[in-house]
Structures are given as C-alpha cells and as structure tokens.
C-alpha cells in the first residue's frame, strides 16, 4: 500500500516522543573534557583487573562499593572524585593519575608573578588616577564610586 501523505503515515505508526539519543549526544558533548579522562582511567582499570585475575565484583568488595558503581566506572562514564581514584589506586595497587609536586611549585610561582603584576597595575592606577584602596574593608573607590570586593 503506497501513501501520498508520508507525514500522515508517520503519525500513525511513530510515537510522539523522540529517541533520547539527542540528550545523550548533548551530554557527551558538554562533558567531553572529563569524559576523555574518565575513559582513559577506565581502560587502565580494566587492564589491571585482568592482570590481577580480579573480577569487577572482587574490586567492588575490596572498595566496599556496589558492583553497579564499578560497572559505571569501567564504562568510562563516571565523573570520578579524588577519593574514588585514591580507593581504586589502593585496591588495584596502581597509579591512575599523576600529580607532580613540581607542578604545585610552578603554580605558586605563577600565582606570585600574577599577584605582583596585579599589584604593579594597581600602583600605576593609584598614581595616575583617583583610585583609592581600603584593603581592610575590601573596598575600592574610583572617584565617587565605591566597589566592594
């Protein structure tokens, strides 16, 4: 049976609600950055589970979490907390992420540079304009205007 009105036919046989695929795709796109990290960690965990002849159930028991939680982690869809990563590292005797102390030092130096640049800018402004700072009250005056930080 051919139909002239394909839209009419579709209304007859296709339910009103759409697939949830579009929501899934948008979620994947919005969370792409951390999902990539979660996927890399998931792969490492699965490799280690095999190396140790573990099962996901054994891992769940060691970590005292539900097997469903482990299942979500190994799919690479879990936004892992530092606590969970640390528990996984301990249970599997493996390093999953690497945070170097040198980086922290670097950040501190960078922060110091930023602070010192900001201070210099403020000093220039103080000299060249009518900006007044009241650090104890977190207040900045630009002429008659008061800004509260």
């Amino acid at each position: 049976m051919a139909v002239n009105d394909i839209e009419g036919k579709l209304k007859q046989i296709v339910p009103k609600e759409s697939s949830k695929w579009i929501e899934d795709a948008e979620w994947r796109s919005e969370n792409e950055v951390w999902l990539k990290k979660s996927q890399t960690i998931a792969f490492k965990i699965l490799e280690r589970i095999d190396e140790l002849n573990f099962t996901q159930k054994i891992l769940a028991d060691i970590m005292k979490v539900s097997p469903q939680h482990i299942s979500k982690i190994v799919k690479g869809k879990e936004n892992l907390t530092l606590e969970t990563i640390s528990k996984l590292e301990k249970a599997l005797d493996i390093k999953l992420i690497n945070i170097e102390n040198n980086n922290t030092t670097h950040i501190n130096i960078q922060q110091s540079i930023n602070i010192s640049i900001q201070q210099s800018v403020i000093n220039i402004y103080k000299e060249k304009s009518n900006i007044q700072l009241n650090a104890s009250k977190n207040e900045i005056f630009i002429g008659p205007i008061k800004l509260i930080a």
Partner: protein
Amino acid sequence: MKVTTLIKIIEECLLSVVYDDKEIDEFRYIMECWNDVEYLRSFYIEQKSHLNGAFYGNISVSEAVRITIEEAKELEEYIKRTAKKGKLDISYSLQSIFKPLNNNEYTINLHQKTKARGINKKSWLRVYAIRIAPNMFVITGGGIKLTKTMNESEHLKRELHKLELTKSYLKEVGLLDENDYQFLEF
C-alpha cells in the same frame, strides 16, 4: 527478533528501529556502545586478529578504543548536521551520507538497504539504514566492520538480518514516499 516500533531521531528525516530484544532504539544503542570503554575493549580483544590484519596495520586495543570513541562523535554530529541541512536543500540530504549497502549498486531502489560510514577514509564504523526518501532514512543498526565483507563476521551477519527484517516491516506498514518515485529505478 522482530520490530517493535520506529522512533524519531531527528524530526521529519531520521528514524530508528526498536527491536523486541532491547528497550532502546538501535541508533541510541550503537552510540552508547561506541562510547562504552568496557564494551569496546572486549570487542577489540575478541576481534584482535582482524584489528591486526593487513588493512588496518597493527593497532593496539587501547588505540582502537580511542579511535572509535572519537569517530563515533564525529559521525553522530555529521549525521545530525546533514539531516538538518537536508531539510532546506536536497543536495545536502541524508542520501549524501547513506550510500547503497552494495558497493556495486549505482541506482536508487524502493526501501533500499544503505550504510553510512565514519568520516575518516579508513573508518570501520557503519550505521545501517533503509531509505524512504532522499532525506528520510530508518536506522536498523550499526557495527564495527573489520572484515572485507559483512558475511565474514557474526555480528555483521546479524546486521544484514536486521536490514532485511526492517525492510519487510516497512513494506508491511506501507511506509514509502510516492513523491520519491521520480528518483527510483525499477
């Protein structure tokens, strides 16, 4: 296995089949699989001999998983973009992505079996669909094609079966576009 219903993926142009063996539609299901590290790792371990064959060189399982997730994202965005463009301009229709299943088929047929492939030249991702009109397709499933022909792999043989099943269903319910007859060759 039988068709339970069709569901809208993109309004007015892309539908997907729901079969009675799953609760979700096929397009959503394949995209879930192609973003699931556990599923992909198991799949590539099982298919390691094909993965290390002449065509793809020597790709590790971890690299195959990474490539698949990246290509799946590109493919779903490409399909979405083309379907929307195709509503306005027929030259950008889904027909430009979904090609006849058989590489030696150069004509358009009623309820034609088609495939869309990943954007990269060597992509192994395939989305299978039945053509209704230039910008209307019904997705029947999808798969990772590591063999030269679909018949060499069990999971792709299932996809052939699903294409046939859906084609029969669409004939039975009479879903076709009479305006499309001008494009058809019998």
